[in-house]
Structures are given as structure tokens and as C-alpha cells.
């Protein structure tokens, strides 16, 4: 008896949604094994990483606050990824958005009024949007690969951040330390649940998830994005502009990243510092794919990553597990997700030993092979994966 991978006629929807769960389960099993081999209590480690943050109501605020920027950025990215537009530079748009909002905050530092925070948020959105407009322009005008330009602009954004922190925007009362003043109360995000850290960015992230879901599944624009990604030829035939889609998706993902940036600056940070960049823009790519590019999946994926961050710190204090072990844990989750992905389009079949006695031809009928060759992916996500591997 042996196991054989067999192509499916159609991608399995059950597996499409089941594999992330399976990946998490496999990660937990492998984690128990590895942490035990390292000499720690494997079960306790998994408990601290995966269960403790959820079991302790005091930790929930941390989960929401950590997940909100990841979800917001990932939602914007997913729109682009569905249309085969690869914005890898969300980190840069996140930073520039936050910087634009910070600029407004510093200019209005000694002012009061309810208009200040909305102005900061608007500047944040605009900043992210404009930073994403550069790759969009280069792509549509000169056909420059947006993966390269958006990624490289991230490093430009980081240098811009360092420059502003060290010189023009440095806190004049801060003993020369490179960071801005603390924002005033008119410039900080209100908390939505009193007595916790849960700021306005959290409900906004959830609201955006629902909005993106509706737009993608129920509107012509959403249809356009999906068709351009799935079948560019058909889209052109249908009158959808590929160029317009590039602009639309890049500007949207840039705006989302910029919004997340200014929320993070005006919320948890309450100032701008050179340490502002913690790679949320890159982690959000993982969140987008872990969530299957589906808005609600992204919300779940964002929460799962937040749990692993907060739980990783739990494991350090409770068990003395090294930081690297928690990084390994996150990496394993992605590894298993990619590994079990194969089950979406293939199935495991047990080959009965009796089969071995039959002629080879009978076990591999030509018709079946032809069928495999003609296999067409049937969901947008499959299409995405194909273009990823290509």
C-alpha cells in the first residue's frame, strides 16, 4: 500500500478553506515536537503561544491593536493581488502615510480643534496613495515592473524617515534624541473601548474588511478587478482597462497602507520615531495570502499572526523560550500553509497493493493524463497562485 497524489478535476473549495486550518494544526504538532526536543515543555509552549493570549481577556486589546494595521494593509494588498498587481512596497506607503500625517501634527502642534485629527488621517491616506502612485505611473507609462519599484521605494521611505527624525522634525526639547515630540491630545486617536488600548483603527479595520468584501463580490469594480486578474484577454474584450486597474489597485492599496500608518502613529506610538518601521507592510503580504486574499480570511489571518506575536512574548516570560523559537514558529506556519496548499488541487489517494499486479497502462490511463493537462483552475485564488509560481 502506498500514497499517491492525484490531480483533482476542480480545485477543492473545502480544501481551499480547510488548508489554512490544517496548516495551523500541523504547526502546533511540529511545534510541540521541536520545543520538546529543545528541552522545553512542548505542550506548555504551545499553550503559551496559542492559547494563553486568547484565554486571558486582558490580552485581547493587544491582539486587536497588533492585528489592526496588518489587516488594513493586507486588505488593500489583496485587492491588487487579485488583479495580478503586485504591490510589495506597502511598508514604504505605510511609512510615508504616517510621515504625511505627522507633518500635519507637527504643523498644528500648538493648535486645538476637532479638525486636526481628521486632517492628519486625510494626509496619511494621501501620503500612502501618492507613494503608490509612483509605481503606478511607471507601470502604466513605461511598463516598469511594479514589484521592483514599489519595493525599492520602501527603502527610500525609510531613509526619508531617518532624515526627518534626525534633522527637521526632531523634538526640540528631546535632548537631541532623534524622534518627534509626543502628539497632543487633539492629535491622538481616541480609544473606542474605554480603559483599553483599543483605538479607532481597530473598528475601522473590521469595517474596511466588510466594505472590501462587498465591493469585490457585488460591484462592477470588484468584478473588473477579478476579471483583469483572472483573464486579461477577456477583460480587454469586455472593455475593462488594464491600465485603469493598475491605477485603481495600486492607489487603493497605497491609501490603505497610508491609513494604517497614520493610525499607528497617532494611536499606539503617539509620536514618530526612527523605529516606526517594523515591517508591517511585509508581514501584511503573509496575512493576505494566509487569508486566501479574502477579506474575512484576512481578518482571521491578522488575528492569528497577532496571537503568535503576543503569545511569543508570553512564552519568553513564562518558559524562557528564546525569541528565535517564536520566529521559527511563525515561519513554520507559513511553511505548512504553502506545503498543504497542494491539497487544493491534488488529492491523496491510497493505492491498494493489488493494483501493482495490473499492467502499468491500466494504472495510468492516457485519458486521465490528458485530463490533467487540460486542468483549468477555477477560482481566482488558484489563478493568483499560478501567477505567483510563474
Amino acid at each position, binding site marked *: 500500500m502506498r500514497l499517491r497524489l492525484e490531480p483533482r478535476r476542480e480545485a477543492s473549495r473545502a480544501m481551499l478553506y480547510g488548508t489554512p486550518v490544517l496548516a495551523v494544526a500541523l504547526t502546533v504538532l511540529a511545534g510541540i515536537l521541536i520545543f520538546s526536543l529543545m528541552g522545553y515543555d512542548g505542550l506548555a509552549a504551545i499553550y503559551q503561544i496559542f492559547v494563553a493570549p486568547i484565554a486571558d481577556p486582558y490580552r*485581547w486589546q493587544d491582539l486587536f491593536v497588533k492585528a489592526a494595521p496588518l489587516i488594513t494593509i493586507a486588505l488593500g494588498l489583496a485587492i491588487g493581488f487579485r488583479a495580478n498587481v503586485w504591490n510589495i512596497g506597502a511598508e514604504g506607503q505605510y511609512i510615508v502615510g504616517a510621515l504625511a500625517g505627522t507633518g500635519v501634527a507637527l504643523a498644528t502642534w500648538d493648535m486645538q480643534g476637532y479638525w486636526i485629527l481628521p486632517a492628519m488621517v486625510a494626509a496619511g491616506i494621501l501620503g500612502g496613495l501618492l507613494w503608490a502612485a509612483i509605481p503606478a505611473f511607471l507601470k502604466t507609462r513605461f511598463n516598469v515592473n511594479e514589484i521592483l519599484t514599489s519595493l525599492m521605494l520602501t527603502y527610500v521611505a525609510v531613509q526619508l524617515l531617518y532624515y526627518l527624525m534626525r534633522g527637521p522634525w526632531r523634538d526640540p526639547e528631546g535632548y537631541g534624541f532623534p524622534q518627534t515630540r509626543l502628539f497632543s491630545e487633539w492629535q491622538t486617536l481616541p480609544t473606542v*473601548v474605554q*480603559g*483599553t488600548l483599543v483605538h479607532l483603527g481597530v473598528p475601522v479595520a473590521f469595517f474596511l474588511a466588510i466594505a472590501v468584501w462587498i465591493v469585490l463580490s457585488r460591484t462592477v469594480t470588484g468584478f473588473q478587478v477579478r476579471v483583469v486578474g483572472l483573464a486579461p484577454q477577456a477583460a480587454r474584450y469586455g472593455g475593462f482597462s488594464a491600465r485603469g486597474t493598475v491605477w485603481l489597485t495600486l492607489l487603493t492599496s497605497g491609501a490603505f497602507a497610508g491609513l494604517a500608518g497614520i493610525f499607528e502613529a497617532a494611536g*499606539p506610538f503617539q509620536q514618530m*520615531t526612527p*523605529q516606526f518601521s517594523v515591517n508591517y507592510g511585509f508581514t501584511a503580504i503573509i496575512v493576505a495570502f494566509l487569508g486566501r486574499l479574502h477579506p474575512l480570511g484576512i481578518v482571521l489571518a491578522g488575528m492569528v499572526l497577532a496571537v503568535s506575536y503576543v503569545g511569543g512574548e508570553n512564552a519568553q*516570560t513564562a518558559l524562557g523560550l528564546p*525569541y528565535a523559537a517564536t520566529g521559527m514558529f511563525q515561519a513554520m506556519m507559513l511553511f505548512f500553509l504553502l506545503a498543504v496548499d497542494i491539497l487544493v488541487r491534488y488529492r491523496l489517494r491510497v493505492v491498494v497493493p493489488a493494483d501493482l499486479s495490473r499492467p502499468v497502462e491500466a494504472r495510468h490511463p492516457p485519458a486521465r493524463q490528458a485530463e490533467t493537462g487540460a486542468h483549468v483552475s477555477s477560482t481566482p485564488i488558484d489563478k493568483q497562485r499560478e501567477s505567483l509560481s510563474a
Partner: protein
Amino acid sequence: MSRMNRRQILVGSAATLALPALIGRAAAQDGPLNVGFVYVGPIGDYGWSHAHDEARKKAQEHFGDKIKTNYVENVAEGPDAERVIRQLAQQGNKLIFTTSFGFMNPTIKVAKQFPDVHFEHATGYKTADNVGIYNARFYEGRAVIGTIAGMMSKSGKAGYVGSVPIPEVVRGINAFTLAAQKVNPDFTTQVVWVNSWYDPAKEADAAKALIDQGCDIISQHTDSPAPLQAAEQRGVYAFGQASNMIDFAPKAHLTAITDNWGPYYIDQIQKQLDGEWAPGNIWWGIEKGLVGIAPYNDIMPADVKEAADKVKNGIASGEIHPFAGPITDQSGEVKVPEGDTIPDEQLLGLDWYVKGVQS
């Protein structure tokens, strides 16, 4: 707690506010004193965080089962730090050491929420009723290695791998350069910033670039041994950071500035145990043993060792001040006239470079 439902927790602001205090108090009643440590780098950096962790181990050894120490490593400066510090406070740590400048605002924020928990923040400037600050005069050690650099360098050009241009780092660069110029008036220091405290790949690249530009001695204000290893490969001299790093570069490593936080941690924990902790503000150096100099490499000639010891002992006794005038800045303007020194208040916010620094 199990009887509280989600709504009560989330909406009942009183309940959520009281929660940390309740849990904190519950944990404090019996058993050992819990002491928390927050590190910016991994404890295996062999630099800054490593030195703090060695001190934590010393304190744990000293007090035995009277205390239990808990630490979190590699904590990003910002909201992540706030979360970690709050978590340590909530888990019943009554004294928490936050060991990086970027943990300052997070520490102050959390301290407000936990008035009965005591905090010790390293290298910052904000204090509160339950937040003390502590720092070390690392620039004194920089003056010692600057003296060695001035004597050992043939090109008269040192490379300096800098992390982030905060006053502490600026002080180090200036003290190093001034000391080297006492030996060789034409001595210059070329600085490359890597914008991180711990990034071995970037640190090594910076060191190599500096060596390519003709620097024959490397100093670093980043936490990994990578610049030393680069120096070892290229056959130039270098200095260790925060702990004795001779194992990483037996030929290049002349000496290292070592951080010895152990006695201070033991003092503060003892005060906490006795119920006598109060927020302080210390800035100790070579004299108190907080800043040390690792054993000299045998490669160093006797006269260099002697000169270095002279500076070290002079600083400890107060005869030598690393920032004694005359000092001119990069533009040639005399900032400190002969006979004066830079006072502590100005040193704390130092943001200009002395002549000979190329940054």
C-alpha cells in the same frame, strides 16, 4: 475572573482598569520577588543586551530563591515595548528594568497604569514617582580606547560603526576622537551609521567599507561582534563592545569597553526587597566600576598599555576629564575654551561633533 463575560470586560472600563492592579496584587503576596527585564536585542548579541542579561544572572545568583527574574528579548522600541512592559507588570513583576532608550515613553506610559510597580529605565531622561533612570558614562571608556587607537593606528584614520545618532553615541564618537588626537593631532574618525543596534550583516558591511576607505582601526557602537570579525579578516585592529569579545577576533580585538550592570541591579533589587526603593538618577562610570576595560591584547606594546592605563586611572580619580577644553567643533569654532569642561547637562544632549569627525 472566569465569571466575567466579554462585554463586562470590554465595556466595563472600571473592571479593565482595576484588572491589572488586582492581578498584580494577587501575584505579589507570597513567594519570591518577581523582577522583569526588557531587552532591545537578543541576549546572544554578545553586546548590550548580553551584558544586561549577564547582570540579571548575577542578580539571580546573588539572591537565590528570594527573587525570580523574567526577561523578554528582541523587543522593538515602540508599541511592542509598551505591550511587553505592561505584560510583565501585569504578570506580577514588581521591579522592571527597561534597558534601551527607545523604551522611555512606553515605560512612562505603563508606569502610570501601574503605580505600585517600580521601573528602572536605562539611558533615558524622563522620570516619575515610580520610574528611576540609570546610565553609564561609556564615553570614559571611549577615551581609553581612543588613546589606544591614536597610538596603534598608522594611517591616523579610524572607522566608527555607529548605530543611531543619539547623544550617547555622539558622546562616544567625540570622546574617542579627542583622546586619539591627544596622541596624534591629525587623527580623524570616519562614521558610518547602520541605523540599528543589532544587525550583524549591516555592521560587517559598514566595517568593510570603512576599511576600504583606508581606516586601519575600527570602533563600534553597535552590539554584535560582526565589525570585529570583519577587522580580523582584513588584518586591522578593532575594539569590542559591551563585553569582552576577544574570542571573535583574537588578533584584531585590542580591548573592549565592558558594561558591568550587576552591582547596580543587585543594589536596586535589594532596596525593593527591603521596601526602600525610590526613583533615582545615576550616571556612573569607570570610578564605580560600571564601565570597565577588558584585558589588553598581548599584541599591544607596553607603552600603549601604559598610556591606556594612565587615562583609565586618571578618569577614575577625576584627574582627567574626557571633555576638557580646548575643544573645537567640525566647523572650527571653539566650543569649549581651555580650562573648561563640558558640563553634564550639555553632555546629556550633545548633538555636535568635534573637529576630525567625518559624519
